[in-house]
């Protein structure tokens, strides 16, 4: 292992992380909900009566956020995504993420941020599992095949 200093961005990562934590904090304290993206989205497929509006307003906020980012952030801070996966990989990955987050009851936000913040043993196990699977997958893709 060696550190990739050219891409290492501790300050923006920490600031972004604090923002994610604040959003999760406000969501549980003001709205009484766990901020878990996969669960919020899946609850709309299809939505049960009376359980849709909070999901929709949250999702609208999430979806307009790139527009707001473009309006307020200096150009060098705008995301500049590097996507190495081809379309087939993207489709397989999407299916795995969709299926897996439902079967495993959460993703990086619900288990990784909220669950670990709550010291939930279930979320600790889930986070260990998805991180381990991520490490192995990237190892195989980058260093084996």
């Amino acid at each position, binding site marked *: 292992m060696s550190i990739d200093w050219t891409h290492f961005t501790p300050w923006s990562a920490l600031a972004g992380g604090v923002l994610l*934590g604040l959003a999760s904090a406000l969501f549980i304290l003001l709205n009484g909900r766990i901020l878990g993206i996969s669960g919020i989205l899946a609850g709309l497929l299809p939505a049960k009566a009376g359980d849709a509006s909070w999901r929709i307003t949250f999702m609208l906020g999430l979806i307009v956020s790139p527009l707001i980012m473009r309006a307020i952030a200096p150009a060098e801070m705008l*995301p500049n995504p590097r996507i190495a996966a081809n379309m087939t990989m993207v489709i397989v990955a999407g299916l795995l993420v969709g299926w897996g987050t439902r079967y495993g009851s959460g993703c990086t936000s619900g288990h990784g941020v909220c669950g670990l913040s709550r010291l939930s043993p279930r979320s600790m196990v889930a986070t260990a599992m998805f991180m381990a699977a991520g490490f192995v997958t990237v190892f195989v893709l980058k260093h084996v095949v």
Partner: protein
Amino acid sequence: MQRISEFVVGVMFGLGLMLSGMTDPGKVIGFLDLFGEWDPSLMFVMGGAIAVGFFAFAVAHKRTTNFFGGALHLPTAQQIDRPLMIGSLMFGAGWGLAGFCPGPALVSMAAGQDKAVVFVIAMVAGMIMEEFVERKMRR
């Protein structure tokens, strides 16, 4: 008020994802590439988020209502079972394969990236398939 805060929280979360680098699959894969050139940034994302979240949930666990007086929905499941583990392994494999998890994928879709649009469609299909299979199995 509830509606406004839900919307604002959605915006904040999206901004946090973009600022932190989570919407860059290359950065996510750089973090997951433990045995190559490793980018530890995502540790700082998790650390920053949990440092704030820890106190908020400590408060939440002592309450029975949210600050607006409405219901507080905290998870009740305790069991560490096979679905939790297998589902999380599947999710992690998909996360490593493309570098997208659900939140950043939705934000990148909204930003107009074609691969993120395809990813989200596949993800929603995966969610619907899982729900369908689980319903069949329960019967």
